[in-house]
Structures are given as C-alpha cells and as structure tokens.
C-alpha cells in the first residue's frame, strides 16, 4: 500500500513477476491484482492495491485500497522517498492499525539529484519497522525488500489524532531528512511551462497533434509494409486453394472463405472466418492498437496526462466533470472497457455516470477508429474528420445536457502533478505487450464468433426479416439501405466487424459517415456493456443506454439531412 504514483505496481510486478500496467500518474491502478512471492519454502500471496493518501477514502479506487487492508497479514508500505512528509501520514495510519509492516523507500535514486539526504538508520529506529531503499524501475533493492518481508514488525503505536500525526511526522522528518539547495532541471522547467496558460495550450496542441500524426504514421506503415502484404502475398493463395477444395460455393465454403470473386479475394468484403475474420483483427485493427498504445504509453510514462487534466479542467466543468476525467476519456480512445474502470478515480457517483456514459457514446475505441480510417478514409480524409468532429460535438453537447439534468454537484479538481520523467522502456514495452495481447485474446474469439453468426443468420435469412421490420427507421430516418441494420445488430458484439459489414453495401461516403457515427454511439459492444452494468448498476445502466439510443438516432437523422 502507499500513496498514489509512488511505484507500487512496479514493485509488485518485480516481486511477483505478474505483469501489471504502471504509469506516471496518480490513479493508474483502480482494482487489485494478486500474485505470488516465494521466499525460501514459503509462498506468500501479494496483492497490488490502488494508491491512497489516507485510510479515509474519497473515491472508489481508494475504497478498494482500504477494504483490502483488512484482508492482509503484512503490509508493504511503498513510500516516495522524495516526498517523505506527505507519504508518512499513511505510514502512521497503517502503523496505528497494528498490521506488521515493512517500508519500501522507493525512487531512492531521485533523492540524490533532488538534494535530499535521508538517514536510513534513524528512520528505521523512529518507525520501528524495516526500511528498504528501492528503485523499482531498475530493480534495485527489490531482493532486499523481499528478504525483509519476513521481518515485518508491528511496533506499539498509539492511535493519534490528525494533528498529533502531523506533529509526529514533523519530528521524524526533521531528524532524518536534510535538504540541500539545487537548481531546476530542464524537465522541471518544461513541467512548469505546460501548466501555464499560453505555453500550456501550445504544448498541448503540439503534443496531441504530434501524437495523432504518429499513431497514424505508425499504423499506416504497419498495415502497408507488414500486415497487408502478409495477407495478400502469403495468405490469399492459400485461401484460393482452400476455396477450390471446398468446391467454390456452398455453406461451408462461405463460412470459411466467404464469397470470393473468381481468382481474387477481397479480405474486407468476403466475410469468411479465415478471410475477413482474420484480416479485420490482424491487418486492420492490430496495427492501430500497437501504434496507439505505444504513443499512449509514452504519454502516460512521461507524466503528461495530469497536465492535460489541468488545461482541460474549465471545459470539463461544463460537462459536469473535472479535469481528471480526461484521463479515462483518453484511455477510451484505446478501449472503452479499461476507460470505464478508470472512472473509479473520480470522486462522486454522478461524475462516474456522466464520464462513463460520455465515453461509451462519444469516444470511439481504437478498433472502431481503425475501421473508420480504413473504410471511410478511402473516400477522403474529410469524411473521417466529419466522423471525429461529430463525435466531439456530441461529447460536448451531451455532457452539457446531462450536467444540467443529473442531480448533485461535481467536486473540484484536486490532484498531485507528477514530475516529468523519461519513460522507462521496460514499462512502456510491457504495457504495449499486455494491451495488444489482451486485445488479441479478447477480440479474436468474439470477432470469429460474430463472423460465424453473420454467416449463419444470412444462411437462415433471419437478417431479411429484421431488415424489413426496421426499414422505416434505418431507411427513413438514417437514409441507409435496410440491410445496414445487420451491422447495428452485430455492433453489439464487436464494432469493428459491424463497420466491416457496411463495406459490401456500396454506400455513398455520406452514408458511411452516418453509419460510422450511429455505430459508435448506438449501443456499447458486449464487453463495454458488461462493465457499464457492473460499474453503474442496473438502473443507471438503463438510463445510460436510453441516452445512447435516443442520441444516436437524433444525431444520425440530423447527419442524414445535412450530408
């Protein structure tokens, strides 16, 4: 346990070998992860918990931390050595709970260039528990920390009042810590500049535009030079052979290879399990997942996101949120599921409802975005920009509306701004690996399932019945061919496959824009739906879903009129 952003997850990962996502901003961890640490013949279960400043929780994530304390036999209290005073408050509270404890004094390497000297022996004596200096990102001190877990002690500590704790902390720090003056580093100057209004906005614009262009460049290059050639040069001949073997027509042929046009395979439109079912996840979505999460990981580890939160605070207040809600929203551009979990860093239920609803309506995930760029982008970048622009306007307007009607007040921003750090490659690459392999593991079964269901339903002519039934709305209101409803239905499983279903319909660019926006807004995919239900509860989920359906139809209808 420890304060937010002190490196608990990195230490956990080092001790147990279990990979967890770690970043340079408070509130990366919002749930708990279990792992095992072996010392000698004994095996201990280790739990990574969210950070908290005190044992009186102010958010869902902090509540989880306080709850988990009750289940632990030993606490490893991770302390930021560069902010001893503030960190010791939680340390004292933990000591008062009489749980055996060992302290990891993390970021030990930073104390030196910050001009901080800490007398370790004195600190051990005053706290009465083992204190191990560590540098989690390099692994320094982790072995010693492990050895000291068995030596965790629970010295006698009176339960103090708030003021008594601060007096005790003052006594401790004045005895163990000496600080010498030093000059500002260039990273600190850059950090200060990015929270000043004018340079801050210029820096933000540069970073966001740069990030967008980089994601696009890396994604396009991966598709153009790696994944697409693999499919068209190596996989296509295999598929054509297989198509011949299966006789060129029939149910099984269509399920596996899809509808082929002679001696050429259209991987986007054929809709076979082994063609479109693999091409969509690997050659259309995965490249963008890789490039998006690489850039996001860098932004996270540099420590830029909290500064973006400060810049956006005024805007976010209009939406009934405060600036920190920008972090879950940014995560949503990758996948809505972790984004909705990340709303646990927000303080009130009202904020969580607004943030989660806005994310599932107006923040398209990387998979959907990749398909939008791939399909809509064929007709020109301006159409892609219309999709993004529309969703952004929806995000703002819907936020203002919900803010007006949802009861309660949203609290003020109060966050710690971490120092800029050079991103450690180990955590950046580890995160990239976890998130991309997570995508493959979770998405591919559903994508293949969706393609299979589509084939079966087509075969049984079920879609025709649905299409005729919903034709008034789909054709009348949205101006799409009635078959497009199948995409909306499949959108409940996966939005990337759903958008792919629009490809064979020969839509006009305008219709594709309407289709993309409606698909993004209409209803969350099944994974997001489950998380929404769990995090918001049944009643709020219903409200949220109602807002989604109504706003998707209104916006889709309006777009149809304009385009």
């Amino acid at each position, binding site marked *: 346990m420890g304060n937010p952003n002190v490196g608990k997850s990195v230490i956990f990962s080092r001790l147990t070998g279990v990979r967890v996502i770690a970043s340079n901003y408070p509130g990366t961890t919002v749930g708990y992860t279990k792992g095992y640490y072996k010392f000698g013949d004994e095996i201990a279960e280790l739990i990574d918990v969210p950070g908290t*400043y*005190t044992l*009186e929780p*102010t958010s869902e994530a902090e509540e989880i931390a306080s709850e988990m304390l009750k289940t632990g036999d030993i606490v490893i209290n991770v302390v930021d050595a*560069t*902010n001893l*005073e*503030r960190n010791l*408050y939680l340390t004292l509270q933990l000591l008062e709970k009489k749980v055996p404890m060992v302290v990891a004094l993390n970021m030990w390497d930073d104390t030196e260039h*910050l001009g*901080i000297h800490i007398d370790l022996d004195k600190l051990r004596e005053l706290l009465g528990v083992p204190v191990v200096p560590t540098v989690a990102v390099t692994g320094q001190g982790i072995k010693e920390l492990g050895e000291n877990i068995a030596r965790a002690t629970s010295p006698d500590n009176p339960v103090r009042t*708030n003021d008594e704790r*601060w007096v005790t902390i003052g006594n401790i720090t004045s005895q163990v810590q000496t600080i010498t003056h030093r000059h500002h580093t260039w990273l600190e100057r850059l*950090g*200060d500049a990015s*929270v*000043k*209004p004018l340079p*801050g906005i210029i820096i933000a614009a540069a970073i966001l535009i740069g990030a967008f262009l980089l994601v696009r460049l890396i994604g396009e290059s991966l598709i153009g030079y790696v994944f697409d050639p693999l499919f068209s040069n190596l996989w296509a001949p295999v598929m054509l052979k297989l198509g011949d073997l299966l006789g060129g027509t029939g149910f099984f042929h269509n399920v596996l290879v899809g509808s082929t046009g002679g001696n050429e395979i259209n991987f986007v439109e054929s809709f076979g399990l082994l063609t479109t079912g693999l091409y969509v996840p690997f050659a259309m979505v995965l490249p963008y997942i890789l490039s998006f999460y690489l850039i996001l990981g860098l932004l996270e580890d540099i420590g830029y996101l*909290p500064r973006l*939160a*400060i*810049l956006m*605070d*005024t805007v976010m207040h209009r939406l009934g949120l*405060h*600036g920190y809600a920008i972090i879950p929203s940014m995560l949503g551009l990758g996948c809505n599921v972790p984004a909705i979990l990340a709303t646990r860093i927000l303080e009130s239920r009202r904020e969580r409802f607004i943030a989660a609803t806005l994310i599932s309506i107006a923040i398209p995930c990387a998979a959907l975005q990749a398909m939008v760029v791939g399909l809509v982008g064929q007709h020109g970048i301006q159409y892609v920009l219309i999709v993004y622009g529309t969703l952004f306007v929806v995000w703002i307007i819907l936020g203002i509306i919900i803010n007006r009607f949802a009861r309660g007040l949203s*609290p*003020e*921003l*109060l*966050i*710690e*701004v971490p*120092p800029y750090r050079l991103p450690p490659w180990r955590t950046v690459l580890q995160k990239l690996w976890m998130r991309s392999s997570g995508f493959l593991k979770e998405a591919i079964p559903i994508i293949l399932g969706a393609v299979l269901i589509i084939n079966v339903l087509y075969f049984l002519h079920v879609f025709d019945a649905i299409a005729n039934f919903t034709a008034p709305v789909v054709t009348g209101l949205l101006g799409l061919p009635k078959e497009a409803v199948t995409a909306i239905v499949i959108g409940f499983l996966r939005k990337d496959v759903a958008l792919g279903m629009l490809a064979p319909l020969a839509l006009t660019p305008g219709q594709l824009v309407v289709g993309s926006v409606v698909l993004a807004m209409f209803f969350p995919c099944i994974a997001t739906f489950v998380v929404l239900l769990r995090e918001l509860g049944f009643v709020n989920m219903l409200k949220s879903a109602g807002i989604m359906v109504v706003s998707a139809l209104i916006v889709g209808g309006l777009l149809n009129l304009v385009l």
Partner: protein
Amino acid sequence: MSDHKQIPLNRMESGQRGKVIEIQGGQGIVRRLEALGVRTGRNITKVSSMFMRGPVTLQIGNMQIAIGFGMARRIIVELD
C-alpha cells in the same frame, strides 16, 4: 498581527511565495488538502493558474499540486 499581505491562493501571482494561514471549509475539504500536504503553516510557491477560473498549480516541497479554482479561493496565504 503581521504586516504581510494575506490573500486567497487564486489571487497570488505566479512565482510568488507564501505561507498557508487558513483553509476556509469543512472537515472534508481540509482533510483532503492536508492529505496532499496543503496544511496551515506550510510554505508554498504558486506555479501558475489557468485562465477562465481554471485550476491553480502550486509547489510544496518537491511536489506540485493542482487545485480547482473554487477550492483555491478558500485557501488563504500570507505572502512572504
């Protein structure tokens, strides 16, 4: 009474230093600020504030904290 000027945090200039002398607010706000190190008696330096009543960023020791405008208004600082 000291002859130094006492003003709320949001009205400090960037780069000015001062000491927190009062936090006007209920237990909840005081506790949350204290947990982050903002307590009466602490020396702080204002780093910046966003326009349009945006958050105030300040430096305490080695740490920077951003505080929403409404909360910053209730933190009274005595300038050095």
